[in-house]
């Protein structure tokens, strides 16, 4: 593996430019060059860390058959376009760009490098050589909701959320639906912090929620600050993206883990076999792309069993995360009993289920 910093990438860009398209020639025995563009540092213990684990899984699978390159800390926007272009220029044949804000830069670079295959995480646009992929985090939220319904003594959860986009709204709703199946009076108080990452604000948000009756916190922001606040108060919280239990050994009940490795291994196999094609992939717990990190021992066995049942029911499809009847928080029925929200409805979701105050 070569760990390039942005600076080194720029330095080598000149040299690489003199070897145009070398990497896209017939492979022969040369390893497949795969690159990953990361938003944060690998050590963020969240989003980027999870992608890095995915890359490690791919290396474990293919060994010398692939040669991977990573670039960390790539800001979204123009900076990322330069990084992606340089990676394409260096002969990488498959490039994973792992943040929403890389969507347009990825498409732009892909137009120029038609022989390079691109994979963009969490976006909604595709092209001939740009596929997109995301994971059904909301399925993991449902498992958290089941646990919260059992474990919360006040029946009130705090939910620290970034921005009201469908991905976040799905999570809030799935969490609340599952919790209310256990405790019909369960309430979820959503606190928008208008940021993916502001540790001090996330910690203060957790305090504000705890001070007003919540005893358990779920979050859709990236830092472990809220978990630390829960640990200090002796209360409970769920981790985000990866196991964050080292920050809050007692408070951390479980976390939703994004298991990208399973997708990376599959896509690399397709490139190696020469049958890669574009498309949009939305894998969940069934495929293993979303997993729960180990349950905290403080969760009683029967609650763990209930959480596992929620997971298994989602996996075999018997009780989807969004199974009817569903009413929204104004009392209007959104889905009758027996139905389930389809992907189209989920991707456009802009309302909250009963029990959510947002």
């Amino acid at each position: 593996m070569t760990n390039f910093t942005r600076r080194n990438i720029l330095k080598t860009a000149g040299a690489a430019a003199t070897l145009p398209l070398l990497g896209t020639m017939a492979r022969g025995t040369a390893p497949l060059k795969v690159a990953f563009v990361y938003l944060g540092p690998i050590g963020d213990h969240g989003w980027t860390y999870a992608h890095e684990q995915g890359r490690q899984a791919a290396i474990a699978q293919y060994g010398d058959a692939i040669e991977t390159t990573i670039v960390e800390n790539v800001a979204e926007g123009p900076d990322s376009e330069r990084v992606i272009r340089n990676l394409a220029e260096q002969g990488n044949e498959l490039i994973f760009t792992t943040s929403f804000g890389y969507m347009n830069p990825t498409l732009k670079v892909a137009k120029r490098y038609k022989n390079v295959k691109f994979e963009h995480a969490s976006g909604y646009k595709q092209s001939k050589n740009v596929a997109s992929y995301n994971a059904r985090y909301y399925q993991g939220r449902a498992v958290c909701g089941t646990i919260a319904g059992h474990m919360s003594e006040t029946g009130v959860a705090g939910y620290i959320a970034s921005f009201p986009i469908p991905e976040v709204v799905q999570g809030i709703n799935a969490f609340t639906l599952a919790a209310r199946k256990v405790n019909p009076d369960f309430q979820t108080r959503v606190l928008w912090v208008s940021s993916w990452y502001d540790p001090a604000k996330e910690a203060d948000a957790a305090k504000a929620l705890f001070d007003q009756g919540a005893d358990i916190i779920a979050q859709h922001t990236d830092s472990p600050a809220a978990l630390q606040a829960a640990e200090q108060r002796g209360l409970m919280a769920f981790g985000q993206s990866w196991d964050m239990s080292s920050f809050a050994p007692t408070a951390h009940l479980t976390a939703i883990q994004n298991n990208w490795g399973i997708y990376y291994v599959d896509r690399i196999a397709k490139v190696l076999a020469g049958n890669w094609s574009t498309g949009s992939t939305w894998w969940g717990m069934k495929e293993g792309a979303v997993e729960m990190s180990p349950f905290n021992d403080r969760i009683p066995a029967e609650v763990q069993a209930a959480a596992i049942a929620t997971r298994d029911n989602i996996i075999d499809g018997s009780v989807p995360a969004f199974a009817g009847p569903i009413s929204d928080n104004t009392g209007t029925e959104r889905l009758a009993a027996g139905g389930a929200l389809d992907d189209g409805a989920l991707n456009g979701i802009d309302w909250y289920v009963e029990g959510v105050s947002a």
Partner: protein
Amino acid sequence: MNDYLLISFIMTVIGASTPILLAALGELVVEKSGVLNLGVEGMMLVGAVTGFAVTSITGMPLVGIIVAAITATLAALIFAYLTLTLTANQVATGLALTIFGIGLSSLLGEGFVGFTIDVMGPVFPAGLAEHPVLRVVFGHNVVVYFSIAMIGAVAWFLKKSRAGLILRAVGESDSSAHSIGYSVIGVRYAAVAFGGAMAGIGGSYYSLVLTPMWAEQLTAGRGWIALALVVFSAWRPWRLLLGAYFFGVVMTLELYTKAAGITLIAPELLAAMPYIATIAVLALISLRKSAGAQAPACLGQPFKPST
């Protein structure tokens, strides 16, 4: 609001206010000497990362805070050398210092991501510090009391001490101070160093107390709020104390009202309040034109001794 909630709210406000108060107090002294250092955010981050690193190695938060003050002072001295000795543009250099601080702190912190430390406890014994009501006064760590004490110290220094008068003279009229034999550059170096130390302590408050961990850009823009606060306070220490707590109340109120489901005031408006208030104060100052309420006359101007 019941008593428990009120007291919890005040505790959160004090936590949110203390680091910006420290950083802003340092910047106030810097600006009083006629230097504008926009690198507060960068210095805070340098302090945050070094304070955390040293605390996680030694297990002693006080040592971490002292190291944070020293390293942020070193960062400030780079700024001082560029702007005072080489008379570089202060605005550009200050912005560069922020960018430098973000990058340097990321680099230094790389090996410390994911570490945890024990949070500094309150100064007073548990009987007082955990009392349901008295904890408002006694439930804080040493940095909170230090920040209040420093306000008093700086206010006294600027108003009553000879050195403080010299510093203000340098900030109001550098050429006059120079002509009667004071070292303008020397005074400004000292002021910038003090500003760095205070920003470093303020930054370390995030990594050691509020969110005891290291992550990139941990301070998430609080340095800019500190800069706004200096203007908001009209360069007066006691008003700075009021302003810091006002900003803290506004930032915390945004979260507490949202958590309570109260939407009387748009949360976006509350989030913007520190900046709106600063603009309002700036407008008032420029209307009033009374001496003392204005910016130091030489603020941001490079000084070249004529001889």
